[in-house]
């Protein structure tokens, strides 16, 4: 159902654009040549985001490129812009897109240093832009795991958006299939949880080395997560 809505919206966009001409259709809302009541809500939302100077779209961002590219949706973002869970057809498209984008590291998945992973799991620094930019020259980005997950059972301030990961490694071990699966989930969780709210940390966010540290924090028998 959600999928149909999105497809319908896409058709309407093309039809309107063909009728009005792209240049005329997407002008700044403030110049009054645009009649916002003639747009679908989806069209108007896209127009507001990308054509009204509501954001600092020209500002450079840490991963390269500009704010405009941040705000332009890729396939998974567009498919998952919905309330609630995706229907089965949409979920299938999301999983397929996620699998197509995934790359296993050369040489296979390895665990890094759980102590560094612990720091990354607690740090919410990185990739924020606008009025107060995060400067990656002075401080590395974090993985921000505790914003949403319980991990170390002794840590008291943890989020509940995602499931508890306490004892995650103790219950699963560290054989190759576990390492591969956890790497796939941290790197691009939509392969298993389509339209999850967990970010794709392998997409311009964490390096492979950082991911190996976070995985060690989660899986290493010595990590406090598994005590």
């Amino acid at each position: 159902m959600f999928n149909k809505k999105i497809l319908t919206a896409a058709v309407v966009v093309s039809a309107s654009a063909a009728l009005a001409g792209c240049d005329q259709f997407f002008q700044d809302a403030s110049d009054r040549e645009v009649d916002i009541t003639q747009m679908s809500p989806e069209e108007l939302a896209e127009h507001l985001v990308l054509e009204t100077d509501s954001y600092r779209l020209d500002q450079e961002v840490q991963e390269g490129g500009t704010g405009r590219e941040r705000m332009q949706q890729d396939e998974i973002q567009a498919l998952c812009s919905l309330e609630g869970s995706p229907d089965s057809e949409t979920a299938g498209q999301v999983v397929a897109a996620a699998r197509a984008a995934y790359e296993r590291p050369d040489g296979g998945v390895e665990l890094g240093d759980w102590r560094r992973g612990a720091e990354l799991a607690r740090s919410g620094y990185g990739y924020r832009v606008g009025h107060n930019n995060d400067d990656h020259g002075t401080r590395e980005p974090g993985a921000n795991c505790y914003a949403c997950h319980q991990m170390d059972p002794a840590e008291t301030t943890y989020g509940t958006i995602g499931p508890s990961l306490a004892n995650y490694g103790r219950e699963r071990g560290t054989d190759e299939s576990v390492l591969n699966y956890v790497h796939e989930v941290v790197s691009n969780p939509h392969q298993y949880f389509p339209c999850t709210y967990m970010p794709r940390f392998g997409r311009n966010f964490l390096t492979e080395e950082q991911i190996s540290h976070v995985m060690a924090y989660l899986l290493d028998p010595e990590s406090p997560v598994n005590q």
Partner: protein
Amino acid sequence: MAVGVAGTAAQADEWQDPNDVLQMLLEAQPDSKYLHQSEMNIMMMPDNPALWLLDDGERLFHEERGPNNASLESCDFGKGEGVLEGAYVELPRYFDDVGKVMDFEQRLVHCMKEIQGFTSDDSAVSQRHGSGSDIMRLTTYIAHQSSGYAWNPPLDHPEEQAMRDAGEKLFFRRGGAMDFNCAACHGDSGKQIRASVLPEMRNSQEWTKAVSWPAHRAGQDNVRSQNHRIRGCVWQMRHAGILPDTPVNTALISYWNDAARGEPAILPDLKR
């Protein structure tokens, strides 16, 4: 307890003390983790530091200021020139004089420029976010005149409806470096980000508290606005930085206030 809620919404078109509004919501939802998360803030509510801004805001509203040496008494927030009672909860709305939908802050700035002659460079207009700013003092004074009134942003004009509906799409629009939308944090009840319990957008009684800005933020020791809350969420979501007085703000606030429709506003509120 639920009876009190229905009563609240039904008789909401009169001014009520913000502390009384909060107490009604707390009684109506004794199990809401969001509403009950900070016992200290609930206890502090009668002495909410945001109330300290009211006198300054009242003076600034009536004082003849700016290059035009004019007061804001002729500013029309939608219910007629100088009418403040119940005006804040009926925004955003379409204004004939500018031919577009404006949210509260956009309208206030518009009046300060058009009536008083301030320009964007004047600190009276450019400083938006601290308790010491003219904008926050005026916002708190004007919003306070709507405390206890039910959120009721008009949707009669086609542009009001269009902006509200686009705001809903924006609320669910995934984007940025972390793929977040607003619903990532506000789609479920009782969820936490770290230690913060989050309000759910479909729970209108949690949501009326969530959108009841201006509010004193205890952790920041400053009174903050709806627009400041959006800026902070956008920053944390790793979207591109959002700019003041722009239509994305207006559309999101149109949707926010509509989602709290019928519930009384807490103005000013106090938050963690």
